[in-house]
């Protein structure tokens, strides 16, 4: 049962309620990049006194771990189009390098834009923030173009 995808009309509203809960409980904008940043800055000061956002990231990872334990791990092998395109030892190393580079782009880009899919995409748009609408349109459009271009290149 857990391996069948949660219907979007249940999963979507549940995520939306997380945004509302964060605002109602502590007047904060829910954003996963804020959560990552709290952990990185706290650790870089050689401390472990994480704020609410740091604890949100730990909750996020724990929730996924609990899900994996109940559902029996992910039902996919390899890593999508990347491992399908680049195989063998050198291919695996290349995929790792590509993912590392993507991580840097995602981290730097979302910090510059002040939010990711949750901070700008969910919370910012729900706050009717024009900056978040601009950011969301830009990252969705860019990701769609990049996906179609890579799909054309490998086929």
């Amino acid at each position, binding site marked *: 049962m857990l391996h069948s*995808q*949660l219907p*979007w*009309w249940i*999963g*979507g*509203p549940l*995520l939306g309620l997380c*945004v*509302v809960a964060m*605002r*109602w409980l*502590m*007047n904060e904008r829910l954003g*996963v*990049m804020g*959560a990552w*940043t709290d952990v*990185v800055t706290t650790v870089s000061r050689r401390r472990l006194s994480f704020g609410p956002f740091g*604890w*949100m*990231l730990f909750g*996020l*990872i724990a*929730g*996924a771990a609990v*899900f*994996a334990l109940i*559902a029996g*791990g*992910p039902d996919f092998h390899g890593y999508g189009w990347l491992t399908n395109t680049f195989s063998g030892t050198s291919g695996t190393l290349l995929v790792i390098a*590509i*993912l590392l*580079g*993507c*991580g*840097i*782009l*995602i*981290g*730097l*880009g*979302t*910090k*510059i*834009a002040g939010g990711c*899919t949750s901070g700008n995409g969910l919370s910012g748009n*729900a*706050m009717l*923030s*024009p*900056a978040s609408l601009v950011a969301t349109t*830009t*990252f*969705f459009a*860019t*990701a769609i173009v*990049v*996906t179609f271009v890579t*799909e054309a290149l490998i086929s």
Partner: protein
Amino acid sequence: MSTRAAAAIIGVVFGVVLSWSGMTSPEIIREGLLFQDPYLFLFFAGAVLTALVGLRILRVRAPRALLTGERVQWEPVKPERRHVAGSVLFGIGWGVAGACPGPIATQLGQGIAWGIPTAVGLVIGIVLFGRLQRRAQGDPGRRLAPAVIPSPVAADASA
């Protein structure tokens, strides 16, 4: 309840929903971005609409935050070049890797080793941004984030 405990519980719910909805899988993200499966967009729209309605209710009723007691309020942000520039970089990474910051965390939680290089890159990106920002400080022309102190004109306008 402390804000830390509450945020951790919200994180758990967020993590279970992201995992159960398949957002951890780069293939499901890719099928969405290639318009082969409407799930990604329906899921996202369902989340935004629910949050929008919920926040509108909070906006109108303006309660005090249940845990901190402060007034529940927020200010909309005006678009700047950084919102476009940063989101282009993010969009490239998201399109190629098929993962954004939430799913990167849930990949780690589910024990998907491919999430490790992406997460390491993400941390490098955060550190890099901190350094760029510190270097740009004191030089408003190179500032990446908005000024912390509002200008007198803006303060008058909002008063």
